[in-house]
């Protein structure tokens, strides 16, 4: 066990209590989303606050698909997030492998500028992107949002995958080359399969960030045909016609589920990715 000897009461009830408290604080708001989402709308506002649902209904879930274009926004979110992820991984793989394996002129400069670009705040890029997209006539289309998110995702992907490739032993690829593989074959058949955990981590990070992105989506996709879930959720709450909280919570639940499930399934990869970044960063 990795006992580090700081908290000597670690196995006692205090640890359990503290752990419970932390988990409660982290997860209680999700219970509240569920509670409101399954309560019939009229009950939520007539009978005061109830800590346990007294009635169970799926009306709110049905409601968001009928009353607002939730299904459409869901599809938009999937299209954008999957595109950004695929685009990022394809672009980053080649660049990352080159950074990790070849020593070429300007390599350091490129890596540093990549990190600097990654640090550039989205809010600074908002105005130029708006002008560029307007000039290109692609405001309110998928490509605008995909390109906007890729400006952050690609530097991140390259950086994470460079670290990952660099951590793989070079000797395996050299051995493959001795055995008659060419450089490309060594990369595709040896390095790539070994890098799968790193690729999964990068893909998940990018997917989650894209799925959750609000700023770019809000500015570049005002029309219903490309509107993503976070933008739709804001419209629910800021709506002029009064807020149906039951539906809002049903929408919030369905927006959260895909990323929460993806995270819980692949959290080992993510945490390893985080740890690698933290140790090296």
């Amino acid at each position: 066990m990795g006992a580090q000897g700081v908290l000597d009461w670690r196995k006692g009830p205090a640890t359990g209590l503290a752990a419970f408290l932390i988990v409660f604080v982290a997860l209680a708001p999700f219970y509240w989303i569920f509670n409101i989402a399954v309560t019939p709308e009229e009950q939520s506002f007539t009978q005061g606050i109830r800590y346990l649902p007294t009635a169970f209904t799926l009306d709110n879930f049905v409601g968001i698909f009928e009353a607002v274009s939730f299904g459409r926004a869901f599809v938009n979110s999937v299209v954008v997030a999957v595109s950004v992820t695929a685009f990022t991984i394809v672009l980053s793989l080649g660049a990352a492998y080159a950074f990790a394996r070849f020593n070429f002129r300007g390599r350091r400069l490129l890596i540093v500028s990549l990190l600097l670009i990654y640090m550039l705040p989205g809010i600074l890029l908002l105005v130029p992107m708006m002008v560029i997209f307007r000039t290109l006539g692609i405001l309110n289309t998928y490509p605008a949002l995909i390109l906007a998110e890729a400006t952050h995702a690609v530097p991140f992907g390259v950086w994470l995958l460079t670290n990952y490739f660099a951590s793989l032993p070079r000797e395996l690829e050299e051995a493959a080359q001795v055995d008659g593989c060419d450089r490309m074959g060594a990369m595709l058949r040896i390095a790539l399969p070994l890098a799968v955990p790193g690729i999964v981590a990068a893909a998940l990070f990018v997917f989650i960030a894209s799925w959750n992105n609000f700023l770019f989506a809000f500015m570049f996709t005002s029309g219903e045909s490309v509107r993503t879930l976070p933008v739709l959720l804001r419209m629910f709450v800021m709506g002029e016609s009064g807020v149906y909280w039951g539906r809002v919570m049903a929408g919030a639940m369905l927006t959260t589920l895909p990323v929460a499930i993806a995270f819980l399934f692949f959290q080992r990869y993510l945490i390893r990715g985080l740890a690698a970044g933290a140790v090296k960063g």
Partner: protein
Amino acid sequence: MTIYPAMYALGISTTDANLLRLDSARALGLGNYTKAWDDEIFTESLWHTLRWVVVNAGGQMLVALPVALLLNTGFRGRGMVRAAILVPWVVPGAVVAIIWRYMVDANYGVLNDVLLRLGVIAETIAWIGEPLPSFIVISTATIWAGFPFFAVTLLAALQVIPEDLYEAARIDGAGAWQRFTKVTLPLLMPTILLLLLLRTIWLAHSVDLIFLMSNGGPGYNNYTVAVYSFILTWSQLLLGYPSALVIMLSVVLLIASVFYIRSIERSREWM
């Protein structure tokens, strides 16, 4: 792909450009930059930015450190706890905003209900509608969503501290508190300082939660420079002036970061 827009932002910040009449934008030189200092909303939002960054970066650190220490003790079910606390981190900002807004709602909010039952308050508070309460609520939501990443990164740093060091300290008679202050904290410091820097930069430029929870209101009470700039672009389609505001913010942060990193390196030389 990214350098060009950044340069573009610099260029456009010297004009009075507006999305609706891009072609007829007039050059103002540094006009936008000097104008900002006569703009009371801007000078006020500078203070709000400072308050926002200090409270939230500090708050996340103060929550994350004990959590990381607890997770590092290796109790049973640690993996599950770690996964559970990371869930708020993957939740979309729009959902974080909704759930916290609802929990503090003046009429239907659970926070008012709990506080009333406990007798802490005598009547319900319109949390989002009041200057200080809205800041507290938005900060709480931000810390809730932000501390998991902080904690897990700290945990990763904690786990590479060699067990031998604690063993040696114990043999030398150091108690739990001394082992924490003399072994853990110094070794953790580089990570903490780096995380605080990254978080500060990120928070200073963040718009999502403030905008989603209160539109920067009530009034201008939660306007940070980033939020102000964003709202100008969004509601008035202004391009030049908001760019100038964000560039000033980024430059100040860049200079502060350089000094910060320098002073860290200098203090490390003394150790």
